[in-house]
């Protein structure tokens, strides 16, 4: 029910619109749900609207898990 794609904000336009891009494709989208958007933000887009900003996950926490796992089990990745 939710085909949505991560894109980068290139330009904030008038009338609740922004120009966004993903690898070689540019499109104009509505920012009705994300009025505080800034240029260079990464966002997800669904059917021509920005749904939400993408916040980088706490990568450190997740990596800690992996390192811990590898250490404990002495596993080697093939």
């Amino acid at each position, binding site marked *: 029910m939710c085909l949505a794609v991560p894109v980068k904000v290139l330009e904030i336009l008038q009338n609740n619109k922004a120009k966004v891009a993903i690898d*070689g*494709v540019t499109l104009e989208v509505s920012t009705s749900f994300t009025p505080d958007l800034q240029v260079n933000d990464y966002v997800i887009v669904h*059917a021509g609207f920005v749904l939400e900003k993408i916040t980088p996950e706490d990568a450190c926490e997740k990596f800690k898990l992996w390192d811990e796992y590898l250490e404990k089990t002495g596993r080697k990745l093939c």
Partner: protein
Amino acid sequence: MPTITLNHGLGGKQMHEFIKNTIMTKLQNGILEKMDDSAILKNLKTNRLALTTDSYVVSPLIFPGGDIGRLCVCGTVNDLTTSGAKPYALTLAFIIEEGMDLAVLDTIIDSINKTAKEAQILIVTGDTKVVEKGKGDGIFINTSGIGFIDDHIEISTYNTKDHDDVLVTGPIGNHEIAMMKARNLIEFDLTVESDVRPLNIPIENLLKQKVLLHSIKDPTRGGLASALYEIVEHSKVDITLIEKDLPIDKVVQSVCSLVGFDPLYLANEGKFIITCPKESSQHIIKAFKGTAQIIGRAKKSEHPKLLMETKSGGIRKIGMLETMQLPRIC
């Protein structure tokens, strides 16, 4: 703006002049301009003659990367090449709609000429008809082609063997995305061109070097998946594609992500799938100047299937395309 009229189709003076001045001056090659009802081709030494025909109905007539003229030569040349034939001659038949802009027609004929030279093929005979306005889409073109197959060559979709490498000669999906953009079916800003090109010369070079090729197939309508299905069923093999090795241009991938398309089913007009013994693969990659890539492998099978090894190491079936892909929200 000079256009085609019904008079051009009458067989009289206007038609004769049109053919002479527009078509013949551009396409003359020693045979065509004789304007005999049949072209006489002499001194042909072959035990196997390949013969194919195709009709071209495309809209718009001129699109990024090509036009219907380029398409009608490449399509038939490439079809002949898939059976291991060296393309020799083409027929060229036009059905032109009354009111068609002569300047556009000029562009198309120039394109046919250029592409025929690129493919080193002769256009030896043709026909021109004109239909009333509203009964055509600008122009329909049919080309039939003949080619010669050397005695020792066995290339067909029935010929893929156990342990064969499966290659594609370049990135997939560009033609269909270019056409969708040209038809305004996608409104995003992007630059992508059709990949339409003749592929007979690199194949000819490989065959001259005695590089062994088993199957060649052009992934046109229905894309890579549909073309591979033919090989899977005819050769009775499982083919497993390696997802991370599939060449897809970023812009094509982006469009697919935005509207929910699967690039495996997008049409190509300048690509071949080639199956071959492992030793041949590097030669193929070299012949296609580095754009060709090994994308999978074949395995003999009682219950032939087309499979995908995903980027994460899972295995799934690749389904056949049953209906047209449409932009979706889900």
